[in-house]
């Protein structure tokens, strides 16, 4: 199997007091937070504002961040949730989950605060899984996307990729295993 893409994970950065710290935190988590905001707000422009606000609030609250209690990602995601909720309120829109891709499911569940929290949980899990998929090698990622996420027949996908079906099956297997490793690297528990 191809080598897993390795990203420098290193020790979690906790010093947000200076420009360098903010820059590094953005480099590590900015893309994820942007996607969270886009899904949460359903608007790329509002999402960009939200991302700026997240890092600003993180910087303001930097003294309250405790690396022994939560990863920087977890903490930033919490802040992102508050920012998204505030942005929705400021818009005078319906509850924040309006812009969620799966808001229909959430609303069908229960429109209360609990459902909102669960909705955010689910959204967060999805964003992290997508980020993990993005970090896979092309062969693994495409195998999983085309067969499973797009729900297409294996022979069709194998033909399109120009490989035997057995190879495609093998890519699905090793792709899942690679996904597991990537999520461990990201410190995400399933």
């Amino acid at each position, binding site marked *: 199997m191809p080598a897993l893409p390795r990203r420098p994970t290193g020790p979690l950065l906790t010093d947000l007091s200076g420009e360098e710290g903010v820059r590094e935190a953005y480099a590590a988590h900015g893309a994820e937070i942007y996607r969270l905001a886009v899904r949460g707000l359903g608007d790329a422009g509002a999402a960009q504002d939200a991302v700026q606000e997240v890092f600003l609030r993180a910087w303001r609250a930097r003294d309250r961040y405790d690396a022994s209690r939560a990863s920087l990602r977890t903490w930033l995601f919490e802040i992102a949730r508050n920012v998204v909720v505030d942005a929705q309120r400021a818009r005078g829109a319906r509850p924040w989950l309006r812009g969620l891709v799966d808001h229909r499911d959430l609303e069908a569940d229960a429109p209360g605060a609990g459902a909102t929290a669960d909705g955010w949980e689910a959204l967060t*899990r999805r964003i992290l899984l997508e980020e993990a998929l993005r970090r896979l090698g092309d062969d693994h990622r495409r195998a999983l996307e085309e*067969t499973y*996420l*797009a729900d297409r027949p294996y022979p069709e996908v194998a033909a399109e990729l120009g490989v035997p079906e057995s190879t495609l099956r*093998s890519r699905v297997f090793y792709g899942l295993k690679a996904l597991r490793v990537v999520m461990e690297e990201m410190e995400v528990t399933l």
Partner: protein
Amino acid sequence: MTARDPEHEKLRTDLGVYVLGALPPDEAAAVEAHLAGCAGCRAERDDLLPLADALGDLRRADGGPTRFEPTPDGLDDLVLARFTQERNRERRTAWARRTGLAAVAGAAAATALVVGLAVTRDDPAPAADPVPVEPVSVRVTDRTVAADAELVNHTWGVEVLLTGRGFVEGGAYEVAVVGTDGRRYPAGAFVGTGDREMLCHLNSAVLRPDADGFEVRDGRGRVVVSSRFS
């Protein structure tokens, strides 16, 4: 059947398609029969199942290939610019708080290097600045105001140390350093303290050789204090 057995290897790699529920029924039956007698493959399957669950959740939510919204170019710059602006604002606010001032005008926030500190003359002397200061003459156009100024030649730009009294209590004043090119460069802002004497550190990004003078303007844009450097 051993671990290196190609037939076993095929069964094992089929576990991926199996946990995703896409194995044809006859092959799935064969895999299940094998799982019943192979602890290694059962462990493998158990490792893969949570991923299948997570992917299933993703597929239900998105109903298709995942969308990786690319992060817009330049968002990193926006994040840093907001941060820099806010940090500068906070420094000005801290300065205003220390001097008991209500507010500080902040239009020039992003570009001004920001007032670092201001103390009243009655305070114990601040730590001596190791950088030599250069006295400059000032012209006061508001008769109620008295002011003196000195310059500090920093490597990052010239700092104006402005002492004075008679600036309208609570009134906002903007300070600009005038460059040798005739342009005005923001050097921060302060709020008047009335009869109390004040000392403001006003930092500009203009290097001393490129600085020709400074101006203090009141809220209506009138120059109340000005200086031409020699």
